[in-house]
């Protein structure tokens, strides 16, 4: 590829905890997510894989919610809260350009940055990555994607929580 793909923004998350929800778990992944949301835990990113023996999922929560989530997970055997912190890197807008996704994946692989998950939405592509490598990942993305002038990857300045 010669030119960079044009994007408008690159957002990095706070420190997050990755939850692995196994297929065929008891309670099922859907019920685990319901319990977390009932406890007003922000689900920053949810990736679900449908199939047999059921739906498996990957879910990110704020690191500051870990103690509460671990109390909920006592009743959810099989759900694993990963100890290594993760973060999300969100690129927008994707404008349905598959070459942007391919270029970012190639760039992350070149940097040996492991990928825990990918999600797409109406406008954005979100990559779940080790938190300690988020800045490195942002630099890797900026090698293949062009932000507007005077723009840099940014982190949120506040958290929104239900009380």
């Amino acid at each position, binding site marked *: 590829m010669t030119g960079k793909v044009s994007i*408008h*923004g690159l*957002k990095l998350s706070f420190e997050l905890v990755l939850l692995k929800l196994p297929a065929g778990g008891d309670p099922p992944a859907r019920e685990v997510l319901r319990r977390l949301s009932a406890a007003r835990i922000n689900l920053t990113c949810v990736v679900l894989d449908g199939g047999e023996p059921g739906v498996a999922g990957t879910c990110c929560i704020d690191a500051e919610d870990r103690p509460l989530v671990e109390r909920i997970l006592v009743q959810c055997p099989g759900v694993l809260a990963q100890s290594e912190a993760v973060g999300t890197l*969100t690129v*927008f*807008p994707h404008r349905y350009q598959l070459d942007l996704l391919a270029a970012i994946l190639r760039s992350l692989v070149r940097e040996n940055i492991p990928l825990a998950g990918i999600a797409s*939405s*109406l*406008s*954005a592509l979100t990559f779940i990555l080790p938190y300690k490598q988020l800045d490195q990942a942002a630099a890797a993305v900026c090698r293949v994607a062009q932000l507007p002038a*005077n723009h840099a990857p*940014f982190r*949120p*300045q*506040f*958290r*929104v*929580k*239900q*009380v």
Partner: protein
Amino acid sequence: MSDKQLILVVDDDPDLVEAVSMKLESLNYEVAKAYDGEEAWDSIKAQRPALVILDVMMPRKDGYTVCDEMKKSEDYKDIPVVLLTAVADAVTSTNYTHLDGKNTLADDYIPKPIELDKLMEIVRDNLE
């Protein structure tokens, strides 16, 4: 030149910008997009939209500041501003509280999560 009215949609949530834009375009409006307050100002100066839909909590420059600057500017004070106000009952780590648009110079406001049809009604009313 297009005779469609130009609406500027400003929010740091790209999915919200896209969803609102798609709805506006389906109603035959032209749409410009910005993802923070600084970009919003650049777009207002460059394109002079007919109306601005403006989020409150954004990086670089928040929506209250942009609204305040617009309404105090001779050149832009006539452009209607619709604020998208606080998303939850409490917001930690900031000076944002559960303020609503009544306390600002905005022409109208709608609380998040927004109802798109209600927002379109507000846009129509403020363009009349």
